[in-house]
């Protein structure tokens, strides 16, 4: 995943909101969520050294 993508999506959400377009802002926010989760999943690779 490309690390700048979440911030690009976030900027587009903000600009859509400022220009009064709620639906595009909501849709782009969902894209932002998906990109952030995909990027998180990409980086969660090493197992945690924990024992409970």
């Amino acid at each position, binding site marked *: 995943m490309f690390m700048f993508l979440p911030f690009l999506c976030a900027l587009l959400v903000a600009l859509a909101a400022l220009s009064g377009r709620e639906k595009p802002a909501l849709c782009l926010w969902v894209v932002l969520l998906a990109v952030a989760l995909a990027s*998180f999943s990409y980086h969660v690779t090493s197992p945690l050294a924990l024992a409970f």
Partner: protein
Amino acid sequence: MNTSQKPLADLGRQLNLLGVLGVSLALLIAFYYQLALRELPCPLCLLQRAGLIMVGLAFMLNVRFGERGRHYAMALIGAVVTGGIALRQVLLHIVPGTGAYGSAVFGVHFYTLAWVSSVATVLYVAVLLLRFRRESAPLVAGQGGWTVRLALGLFVALIAANLVSTLLECGTGQCADDPVVYEWLQR
């Protein structure tokens, strides 16, 4: 709209604006450590910033388009995402001897602060929802005054600054797990 609802609606907008300012403050502190102390954010740190921005955007939508249940749901989802990412980083360093990433503020590292702030966000949204009665009207042009314009402008500028900073640090690909240089500035 019933006029008796107006003060409540205005208070809701003000409290949401306070939420936007809180997220902006957190992003400003992160930038201070990045620029003044030259601590480059790791991929998980950047994702925590993105999570905080998701929360801030939800508050911003409430300010711009009026309070909506779905905007509050977005704020809660953003807080849970931020908390989950932060918790992962806390657990990476929780075992003694596994070190830490970055500076500590008052003895607490940023990822721990991010987790605490995500829990605080959930509580804050819960309080906002307790007083939320009905959906308010969107802002019309010129409404809200300079405080709204300044607060939202600062928040958008910080998002843009994060985009530029991430491009400089990571380029158009993934970030190094332990970044030490701005990739684009090394070319």
